[in-house]
Every structure is written in structure tokens, then in C-alpha cells.
């Protein structure tokens, strides 16, 4: 994410927004793949060791962990994109996910079409919703600081959530889709090949989509530039308004997909999305705000930790250990604890850029802004010189 996209004048959004750049297997790329493989090997060894020590349930929860991670990653990518560009935490995101699930439900159950059509319809409906939200509400809050859009997003969330209550039943509903039964590979390790495969596959698929978009298309480069420095992006001719709309569209679209996936593994009810909101925030912050790759890592960390900690909690909850009632239900606290630790010790997250601490950082932030403004002016002068 370190390359500056501002030098190429072809970055301006327009009919050629999705032009492709060539793909090279460079030495740097080879090194990164090698490092990723090493991490995978270590992880497999780690899980293997845990399984030997604690039993087969570890593997089961590892599988649940990957499944949860897939959904969280898709959601977190959507959330982090809009966080990076508009600079605020979208507290309506959980409700947008729920809305996505309900639209798909309507298409799937009421209109009796396949769930695929449900997902596609849901995606486009949410894309529209995102753009409308930007036009009606969030464009008017530009430059008002981080709190105003949070308050507005809470309002949006309340409207969506309670609107769903008014229009649809409060009862949990299920998608009408048959994704196979859970099959026991080994006693204690069950997997529903089609259902879990679909979830993991869709998750991976969308990760690839966003990676391709961000790295190889002009729109993606424009998005990264705008998230990095709005003024500089404007000065180099990027249509930041279009980029913002595109980001809202993507963000809400991803929300709808995450909502549908969530509905597939559990159910569709008005509060389903909201209960995941903090989990997704945790993934975004752990990964670093504004970084889609950070969101992937953060989602993995958060999803795996939430599920894999359950056997440990069950053991702790036993009467002969700590005797806590419903110990397994505390697993939702684990991502929260990770979030607090990250906020305390590394607020910028794994891949993030912005400083999160205020008092001494305030001056540094002001200086950084002044220097960025100076860079913008110089860049504009340069651009003027080149064209003039």
C-alpha cells in the first residue's frame, strides 16, 4: 500500500476507470508468498498441537472460526473502506447487513426464487441505499469531525432496524435453501460440505475481488489515493465524489453479502446484524482502519479467537475449575479484549496509518496536515507546470 498512485494522470475516474494493469510475479511477491506459507505451516502445527492436547473439539471450533472469519472479513472490508474514505465509524453497518439479509429473504422466500437471486438483488438494493445515504446525509456532514456522522449513522441504524420490525415479523426466519446436512468426518468433527464450503468460497472470492479492484484497477488506485489524502487526491484530478459514491456502493454491497451469509449459517432476524457490529469493529481496528488487507487479517484474528476460545472457556466453566455459569457464552468478550489491547498498545492496528491518540498527537496531526497541504500546493504547481 506504499506506492503513490498520484503520479499517473490516468487515475481520473471515468469510462476507463476499470482499466487493468499488468500482473508481474516479482521477487518481492515471491518473498511474500513464502512468508505467508511459513505462517500457514506454523498455524497448522499450532492447531495440531492443541488438538493433541485438548481433543478433537479444537478442530471443530477451528472450522467454525474460519467460517466466522470469512463472514467477518467480508463485512470488515466493507466497513473499513468507508471508514478510510469518509473518516467515521458507521454504526449502522450491522443494520445494513440485516437489511441485506431481509431483502434476500424476501426474494428467496416470498418471491420463491433461488438464494443466488436473493443475494444479487440484495447487493444492488444495498448499493442504492449506500449512495442515497451519502447524498442525503453524509455529504452534508463532511468536515464536521468524527462524532457527527457517528450520530447520524446511529439514527440510520435505528430507522433501518425498527423499519424492519414494522414491515417484517420479529420472528427469526430461515432462508429457503438446502445446503446439505452436517457430515461427521471423524467423531466430534462435523462439517456441512456445501454450506461451509459456500461460505468459505464466497469469502475468499470477495477477498480476491477487492484485492483485484484495489491493486489492478484505476478505480482501486483512486480509492486508495482518496483514503490516503483527500486534498492531494482532489489536486491530482481524481473525482473524489465519484470515488466516495463507489466506496459507499461497495461498502453496503459487501454488507449485504455478509448479511446473507450470516443468515445462512444462523437465521434472519432484526437484531442479527447488530449483534455482530462490535465484532466487525474489532476486526477493522485490529487490522487498521482504511486497509482492506488489514480487515482480512483482523477478521481472521477476531473470528478464529472468538470460536477457538470456546473449549478453553468450557473447561474454565467447569465446577471444579472456576465454576462460572454459561462460561462458553463469554467467548464474545474475547474479540472485545483484543480490541481493547490493540487500542491501548497499537491503535493504528496491523496495517493502519492514522494516529489514534489525541493530546500530543494533536500538534503532530496539525503539522502533518500543514505539510500535506504544502505538498498538495506543490503538486498542483507541478501539475500546472507539466500541462502549462
Amino acid at each position, binding site marked *: 500500500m506504499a506506492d503513490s498512485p498520484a503520479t499517473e494522470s490516468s487515475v481520473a475516474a471515468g469510462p476507463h476507470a476499470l482499466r487493468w494493469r499488468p500482473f508481474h510475479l516479482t521477487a518481492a511477491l515471491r518473498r511474500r508468498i513464502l512468508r505467508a506459507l511459513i505462517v500457514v505451516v506454523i498455524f497448522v502445527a499450532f492447531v495440531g498441537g492443541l488438538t493433541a492436547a485438548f481433543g478433537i473439539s479444537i478442530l471443530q471450533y477451528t472450522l467454525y472460526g474460519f467460517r466466522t472469519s470469512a463472514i467477518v472479513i467480508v463485512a470488515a472490508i466493507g466497513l473499513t473502506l468507508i471508514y478510510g474514505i469518509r473518516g*467515521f*465509524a458507521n*454504526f449502522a453497518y450491522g443494520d445494513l447487513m440485516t437489511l441485506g439479509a431481509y431483502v434476500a429473504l424476501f426474494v428467496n422466500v416470498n418471491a420463491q426464487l433461488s438464494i443466488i437471486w436473493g443475494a444479487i438483488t440484495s447487493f444492488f438494493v444495498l448499493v442504492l441505499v449506500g449512495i442515497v445515504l451519502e447524498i442525503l*446525509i453524509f455529504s*452534508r*456532514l463532511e468536515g*464536521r*469531525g*468524527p*462524532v*457527527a456522522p*457517528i*450520530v*447520524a449513522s*446511529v*439514527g*440510520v*441504524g*435505528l*430507522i433501518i*432496524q*425498527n*423499519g424492519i*420490525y*414494522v414491515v417484517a415479523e420479529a420472528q427469526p426466519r430461515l432462508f429457503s435453501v438446502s445446503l446439505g446436512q452436517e457430515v461427521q468426518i471423524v467423531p466430534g468433527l462435523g462439517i456441512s460440505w456445501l454450506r461451509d464450503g459456500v461460505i468459505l468460497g464466497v469469502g475468499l472470492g470477495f477477498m480476491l475481488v477487492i484485492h483485484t479492484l484495489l491493486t489492478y484497477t484505476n478505480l482501486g488506485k483512486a480509492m486508495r489515493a482518496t483514503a490516503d489524502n483527500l486534498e492531494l487526491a482532489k489536486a491530482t484530478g481524481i473525482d473524489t465524489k465519484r470515488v466516495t459514491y463507489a466506496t459507499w456502493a461497495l461498502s453496503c454491497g459487501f454488507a449485504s453479502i455478509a448479511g446473507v451469509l450470516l443468515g445462512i449459517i444462523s437465521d434472519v432476524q432484526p437484531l442479527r446484524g447488530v449483534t455482530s457490529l*462490535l465484532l466487525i*469493529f*474489532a476486526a477493522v*481496528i485490529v487490522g487498521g482502519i482504511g486497509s482492506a488487507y488489514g480487515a482480512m487479517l483482523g477478521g481472521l484474528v477476531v473470528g478464529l479467537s472468538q470460536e477457538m476460545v470456546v473449549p478453553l472457556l468450557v473447561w474454565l466453566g467447569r465446577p471444579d475449575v472456576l465454576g*462460572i*455459569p*454459561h462460561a462458553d*457464552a*463469554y467467548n*464474545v*468478550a474475547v474479540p*472485545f479484549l483484543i*480490541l*481493547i489491547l490493540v*487500542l*491501548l498498545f497499537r*491503535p493504528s492496528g496491523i496495517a493502519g496509518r492514522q494516529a*489514534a*491518540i*489525541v*493530546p500530543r498527537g*494533536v*500538534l503532530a496531526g496539525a503539522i502533518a496536515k500543514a505539510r500535506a497541504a504544502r505538498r498538495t500546493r506543490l503538486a498542483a504547481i507541478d501539475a500546472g507546470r507539466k500541462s502549462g
Partner: protein
Amino acid sequence: MAIDTGILTNVALFASFSIVYAVLAIGFNLQWGYTGLFNAGIAGFFLIGAYTAAIITTPPDPPTVLGGVVIVPGHWGGLSWPFVVGASFAMIFSGLAAALIAIPTLRLRADYLAIATLAFAEIIRRVTINFDTFTGGTNGITRIPRLITYEPPDPFAGGMVLLGVGALVLLAVFLLLHFTLESPWGRVLRAIREDEVATMALGKNTLLSKIQAFALGGAIMGLAGALFIETKSYLDPQDFAPALATFPIWVMVIVGGAANNRGVIIGAFLIYGMEYVSVLLKDYVASNAIYYVRLMIIGALLIILIIYRPQGLLPERRRVLK
């Protein structure tokens, strides 16, 4: 004659609930309007105060066990101490929780603080529901003793007593804040809100002052919790969902005007009035939809106010140094 006291009792109950939310909103106003700390976890401090007061003031309530299985978890405590003690401990524990939360999080920028406090409130609510042998879980806590017990039960007199106590508490909180905000300490807070870096450069430990303000705000929210259990007479963890105990408070403070306690009290009565009207209407409309529509209106208010009139309906009152 009986009808009149009935209506009066009803109105008194409305006023008592409004007072609870007004106190809650004043606590938030101290944190946000006067010190600039955006607390998205108001519900959490409200909850701590309510449960502390309930555990202290209710009679013992051991679990109901049938054949070795716990059917009704009961709850911990049950010390049957008087309300004043319960309210005092409510303030202490909420204030302490606020201080503990504040120490690691107040240096974070505003949106991180919002996320952290929201997370705190949600976790504390889920822990409360989970730890049911301690807190009664989803059953909540019942049999909360009234402030004065009348034999035979007299709802009108009881309602009046509750209203009187509530009004006294509201007045006390209002005066307390007025006093502290005019004080030198309050001046430091105003300076922090104005320009924190300049205040630091003048030798003030702004982090400490902010922690103190946040803790005081939390303590006031705890007091609101204690009042709440008396007004409602039973405790249900669902009442502490963010949509009921955090977001409406934001609306009350934005409506009334940040840093304007008088306006905030008016805002509380207005917004709670909406809830009260919706509960009344529900009997006539015979549908749950009214409950949800009310929350949608709150959502719409949040959006409209923050875009068009974030300074509130009543402006901050100017201060004159005498």
C-alpha cells in the same frame, strides 16, 4: 375523586421516569457537552448503578432449585438496606467503572472512544445476563422495595413520594453541576473543551481533569440507575439496550442543547414524553408497531438535528465572571 388521583398518579409516574432520564442526560452532558468526551456506553453506567442499587436494597433471593436443577437463578446480595445506601453505592460503583474505563480510553480520538464505550456497555450487559446467579439473568430482579410502604397500598401517595424524591435528586444534581462548573475546576474543563493543547501548555493535567469529569458523569448515571429501579419497581436487563438507554439520551442532549442543563431537562421530558404517548397510543392502536415507530422517530431526530441544528434548540448560557 378516584379518577382524579388516578390521572395524577399517572402523570406523576410520567414525570418520575422523565426525571430518571433527565438525570442520566445531565451526566452525559457533563461528559460530552462540557468536556467533549463522546460516551456511547451510557447504558453501561446506567446498568451498573441500577443493579448495584437493586442488589443492595432487595430482600434475599436465593436460587430456586428443583431436583438439583436451578430453575430460577435468583440473585446475589439481597441486603435489604435502605434506598439511600443503595443509591450511594450505585454512584460509587458507576463512578469507579467510569474512571477505570476512562484511564485507557480518554486519550483515544473521539470515534475510538465511542467504539470502546459502546463495547463496554454491550459487554457489561451480556455479562449481566450471563452471570445469572449473581444478577438474576434475563429474569431480572423483582420485589424492589418501595421508598415508603403504605399499608394498605396507596398508589397515589406512593407515586407522590417517588416524584418528590426524584425531583429532589434532580434539583440536587442540577445544583451540584452548576456549582462545580462555575468553580475553578469547571473552568479547567471549559478551557479543555475550548483548546486542550493550549490548556496543557498552561500547566494543567488535562487527562486527569477529563478522567474526573468522566467519572463524575458516570456516578450521576449510576444515581439515575438507582432512581430507575424505584420508579420501575423491577429490573429487566433489556431496558439497558443501547437503543433505549444510550441513543435517546443523545437526542435529549442534542435537543436541549449541549452544555445547557436546563435545556437537557426539557429535552428529557420531551423525548420521554414521546415514549409515554406511544405507550398510551398502543392501547388504542392495538399493535406493537407504535413502539418501533417511536424509535424510528428518534433515529430521524438524530439525523435531522445533527445535520441542521447540532447546537440544540436552546443555546449555551453565557457565563459572567462576577
